[in-house]
């Protein structure tokens, strides 16, 4: 979809969410990217690698975790993964488009590394 602008949004959102004095320590930003979000995880990671130098986290890399689509089936009280966009439960055949996972697009975790030189005591 819009991986470059999303990469910028990730940088802006994370910068606002963590203390400024820790910006330089950020090493990894983890994202959850749903299968239905319209975003390609590999392209988003690549886009972030390109814009990282322009962000407050030049040493950070983006690590995306793809979230598979899961759909709730009421009769079975379980979830299933649609195959080739067939939104019907493979167990009982009941159609359902109650998507409970797979539309996520969020930053889930930030990993910092403490500075290489210890602060003076």
């Amino acid at each position, binding site marked *: *979809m*819009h991986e470059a602008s*999303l990469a910028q*949004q*990730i940088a802006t*959102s*994370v910068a606002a*969410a*963590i203390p400024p004095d820790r910006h330089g320590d950020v*090493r990894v930003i983890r*994202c959850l990217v749903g299968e*239905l*979000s*319209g975003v390609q995880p590999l392209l988003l990671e690549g886009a972030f690698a390109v814009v990282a130098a322009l962000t407050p986290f030049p040493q950070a890399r983006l690590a995306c975790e793809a979230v598979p689509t899961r759909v709730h089936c009421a009769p079975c009280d379980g979830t299933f993964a*649609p195959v*080739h*966009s*067939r*939104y*019907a439960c493979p167990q009982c055949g009941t*159609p*359902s*488009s109650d*998507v409970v996972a797979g*539309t996520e*697009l*969020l*930053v*889930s*975790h*930030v*990993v*910092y*590394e*403490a*500075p*290489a*030189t*210890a*602060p003076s005591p």
Partner: protein
Amino acid sequence: MPQPTVPQPGAVQGHDVSIALLKANDWAARAVREQMARHGVLMLNITSSAGSGKTLLLERTVAALKDEFRICVLEGDLETERDAERIRRHGVQAVQITTGTTCHLEAPMILQALERVDVSQLDLLIVENVGNLVCPAGYDLGEQSRVTLLAVTEGDDKPRKYPRMFLSTDLVVLSKADLLPHVPFSVDAAIADVHAVKATLPVQVVSAHTGEGMAPWLAWLRDQRANARAGTAAVQLPARATSAAPALPAVPLAH
């Protein structure tokens, strides 16, 4: 031995966060939805591929309903005022939103366009999205209902190729139905493909060119409009019943 108060040099720490990347869009969509609910306006978001007949359907729709409803159309396109001009020819207000290079509308663009519209004087706000079955699916604009066109010239195998769009929509219009004799398009196969994604989705077969199927489409619109008004009445009743003027209750989100 005292615990260090600062991390050891080179130590790695992780922090769980939850930052939604479309938070700004969802905030704006909520503001739009509340504005519509306050005035009982039905807002529709019309999506489809480019060239599937959205604007012609809207031209025929505003021509049929302009004496019945106060209508405004927001036209999303990358460039030109062409679509807005086509709507204005029918004497209906239209605001063009040119997105430049962006292939979809986002809710903040709707808020900005609404600065030029008196929502309190409207019954119906129709947003024509940028022609694209991919990206517009992921952006809530604050609409009450989403309508997706699939032209018979596009092929009956599209719904399962673009599941997010068909999952998120409330009505499918098979458009350009007058061309059915000339193209290898099976209405039954298209409906089966739509229902493989979302079994409850209503499908209408419409030709804006000949007028075939326009009556059920207009009836659906009138129903939706009645629902929007009923929602407003339900919201306003408690305010009339009490002397204090309470804040507007939260409006249930359609998406």
